[in-house]
């Protein structure tokens, strides 16, 4: 994943049954319990669902930190549901200015994939589409420019791998 500016991928082996994991992912209420979101309804493919940040019930420390955000609203659009296997939705991975339509702003795609693995269920979570995310209005123009973005990526990678030109010299 290191080096990609567009995509985050996570894998975790969950020592639980497929049914248990699937419910935790696909049941909006259960999802909200561990994630710290209260959804206004169920996950339905193609539908937009409103969510509100609520402190998670799973981790007291995180819950305390989430208090500051309690009540913040956002939306997701559920993309695809394949029972026991796949769930995906889109959302905005940044602040959407009040008064703007979040669905008109670039969104990232979040996917959950369940696979059978020795000892449990291997869950793969990906979030992709960051390259298209504007960080402000100017950035939007920048992100639309593929060449510009490619250069930016190379610069960042070069910096991260320590191959940048040393300032002294």
């Amino acid at each position, binding site marked *: *994943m290191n080096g990609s*500016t567009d995509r*985050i991928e*996570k894998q*975790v082996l*969950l*020592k*639980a049954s497929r049914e*248990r*994991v699937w419910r*935790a992912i696909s049941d909006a209420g*259960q999802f909200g*319990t*561990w*994630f*710290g*979101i209260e959804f206004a309804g169920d996950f339905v493919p193609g539908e937009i669902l409103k*969510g509100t*940040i609520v402190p*998670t019930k*799973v*981790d007291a420390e*995180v819950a305390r*930190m*989430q208090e*500051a*955000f309690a009540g*913040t609203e*956002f939306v997701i659009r559920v993309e695809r549901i394949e029972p026991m296997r796949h769930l995906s939705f889109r*959302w*905005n*991975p*940044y*602040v959407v200015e009040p008064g703007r339509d979040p669905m008109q702003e670039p969104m990232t795609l979040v996917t959950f994939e369940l696979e059978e693995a020795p000892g449990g269920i291997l*869950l793969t*979570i990906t*979030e992709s589409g*960051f390259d298209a995310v*504007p*960080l*402000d209005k*100017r*950035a939007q*123009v*920048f*992100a639309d420019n593929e060449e*510009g973005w490619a*250069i*930016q990526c190379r*610069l*960042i990678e*070069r*910096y*991260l791998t320590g191959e*940048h*030109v*040393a*300032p002294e*010299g």
Partner: protein
Amino acid sequence: MSHPKASSRNASAERNVAEAASVFAALGDETRLRIVTRLCRAGPQSIVRLTEGSRVTRQAVTKHLRALSRAGLVRGRRSGRETVWELEPRRLGEVRGYLDAISTQWDEAIDRLKAFVEPPEA
């Protein structure tokens, strides 16, 4: 909130986004992007050398360098009678920091999911 997941790393994530935004804004211009790329490839350069082979005037390059400097992407250093401009690569890393922050938030969410679905005795 910067992200539904941003909750646990709120302050630093917010700062990362704000800082990244100024970097992207500064780079959202072809000429400035060229200047940064050039400084990246060729190392510290004076305005005279930066303007060489470019259709952009020295005054325009100076203006762009000031904009890049305000975003913390480059810095100017006096060297005799001229100013040598060099890259401030730390700032470019902060753009990546935005993604790292979201990545960390996923790690934390996964920990909570694990605690949620796995029976205590497992």
